[in-house]
């Protein structure tokens, strides 16, 4: 059983190993071009310009080998963009992604296609991420055949073995994705990612679309695979419970910025950033029962025009004058954790 793993020994290994995946000062902008009319008006001296959304701004993080880093936040916080940059699917506007000592941001010339296989991704919606006209055997072997990891005639055995590993019977090889339930499709998506033996797996909300009993099955599968294959995980989710269960360290994002980073145990024991505190308080839980307090007000501002200073200040219960003017830096708050807040009491 996985429950028997000695977690303290795990931690020691983590501390001595150099960071395996490193994201350094990564930013990603998306530009919404002016319409032709606006472009004309701007040439005539009027105040129009391309609109820039900074989806991810100056994010740095490290993931030691064999550990799982969780990224949590609400929609529009940049967590999926960050995941795609880490997977090499999106190039960074600034900054770099370093994997096992080599730069591998998308568009960077240093990395060969073969090296890129070491990084794979599992997507949220298993219906949209599987080709509906491809048989399961083709879905899970296409990449391995293309990259010459296996021969064509080995496909059946290879696929059957992969399916067994993710908990599917081998007699489904010739079926199409629509013949499976959501949970089974997600297993196929995971098998596809594993087919090229990756070391670093990025999971973007892998259980968000699944029913709760099936969610538990997939979470268990990911835990087993992480252990058996010694995977390093970047786990993106809005579900704090799932992140707490799987991840060793957690990054909380708000409007493109990291607002807090801490080990999972520390974060859940004592969230320090007002936004993290709000997130934790407002997730309804079975144990806590009916709530009697007022939830945090306001909505997430548009990333097209983020608030000045600290992005969270319009909704923050502890807002000070300084917060709307200056952006707080990531301040160390002890035990290796950081938080982006001006509060002196952190």
């Amino acid at each position, binding site marked *: 059983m*996985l429950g028997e793993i000695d977690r303290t020994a795990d931690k020691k290994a983590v501390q001595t190993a150099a960071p395996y995946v490193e994201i350094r000062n990564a930013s990603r902008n998306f530009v919404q071009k002016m319409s032709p009319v606006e472009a004309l008006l701007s040439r005539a001296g009027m105040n129009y310009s391309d609109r820039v959304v900074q989806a991810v701004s100056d994010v740095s993080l490290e993931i030691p080998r064999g550990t799982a880093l969780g990224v949590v936040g609400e929609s529009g916080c940049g967590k999926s963009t960050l995941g795609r940059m880490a997977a090499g699917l999106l190039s960074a506007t600034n900054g770099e992604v370093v994997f096992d000592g080599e730069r591998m941001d998308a568009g960077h010339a240093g990395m060969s296609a073969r090296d890129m296989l070491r990084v794979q991704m599992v997507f949220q919606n298993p219906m949209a991420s599987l080709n509906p006209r491809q048989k399961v055997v083709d879905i899970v072997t296409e990449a391995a055949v293309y990259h010459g990891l296996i021969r064509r005639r080995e496909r059946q055995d290879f696929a059957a073995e992969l399916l067994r590993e993710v908990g599917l019977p081998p007699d489904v090889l010739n079926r199409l994705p629509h013949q499976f339930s959501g949970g089974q499709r997600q297993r196929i998506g995971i098998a596809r990612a594993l087919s090229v033996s990756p070391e670093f797996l990025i999971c973007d909300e892998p259980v968000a679309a699944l*029913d709760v009993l099936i969610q*538990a099955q997939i979470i268990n599968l990911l835990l087993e695979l992480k252990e058996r294959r010694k995977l390093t995980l970047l786990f993106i989710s809005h579900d704090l419970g799932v992140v707490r269960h799987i991840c060793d360290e957690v990054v909380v994002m708000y409007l493109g910025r990291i607002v807090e980073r801490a080990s999972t145990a520390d974060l859940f024991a004592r969230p320090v950033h007002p936004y993290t505190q*709000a997130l934790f308080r407002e997730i309804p839980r079975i144990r806590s*029962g*009916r709530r009697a307090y*007022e939830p945090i007000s306001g909505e997430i501002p548009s990333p097209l025009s983020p608030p000045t200073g600290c992005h969270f200040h319009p909704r923050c219960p502890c807002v000070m004058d300084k917060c709307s003017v200056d952006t707080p830096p990531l301040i160390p708050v002890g035990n290796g954790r950081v938080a982006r807040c001006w509060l002196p009491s952190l």
Partner: protein
Amino acid sequence: MNAMPPPQPVLEVERLSTVFDLRAGTVRSVNDVSFSLKRGEILGIVGESGSGKSVTGLSVLGLIEPPGRIAAGSIRLEGRELTTLGDAEKRKLRGNAISMIFQDPMTTLNPVLSIGRQFFEVINAHRKVSYAAALDEAEAALVQVGIPAARERLSSYPHELSGGMRQRVCIAMSLINKPAVVIADEPTTALDVTIQAQILYMMQNLVRDSDVSLIWVTHDLSVVAGLCDRVAVMYAGRIVETGPVEDVLGNPRHPYTRGLLDSIPGDAEPGRLLRQVPGTQPSPLDLPQGCSFRPRCSQARDECRNELTSDQVGPDHFVRCLFKLGGD
């Protein structure tokens, strides 16, 4: 009418069965479902996709279209039988005495009409009012659900609002004709957690202040824990356990309810495998004989193939299982 609150429930659903006649066979989406709703009460109906929770809500509203039909049972709203009503009478009821909040506010709202215009339509369908009077009423309703600058919002179109604001508009619209019962089908599933928390908090206050009864259909047990008075857990078309929220979630007696609770990672020890329920839900075309949960249940024995009844295990707490999990 009278000062005494009526002793009978606002809504009584008794032995309701809703089926869909498909070419492949008859799907029993809702199977022998009974529950009642008191005035000012919030009932959570919880289950996985395909458990029949949404079809139950649609049946109460009379929104089941062929090939679906209500095969048996009765639905009484304030003593009045709904299953035998004609289309015109049902239409008079919907949006008036009973209304619905759907999951996706973008598909509920008409994208080409202003919010104010849509409020006018909802009010005017049941009461003759002037446009100006309807707007005044709508403004008050929007203020009630916490929409800032409500007057200006009335001339906005749905696409100009955020997802959370749209859902607030839908909630205000569902309450505008002072219904006795509101059925909400996963209204916060598409929203972010901080917005979900705002809406849950608001709904509790609205129910407390307005005496409306609420049915909250959801797949999320933690939402039920945070919002509801009573809960009905559905599996494969049947209610397998129902009772006060504290009793059902605190001391579940049905193995399926236990499995649902165990599958939520929140309280489990991090890093360990979750206690999972094997398998998937049975096909609604081919339900197992007797207890539908039998093939996935660790307690199952041969007797579970027999037809089951719902047994009372506590005040207002019923369980449909032969081998109930231990009580206190």
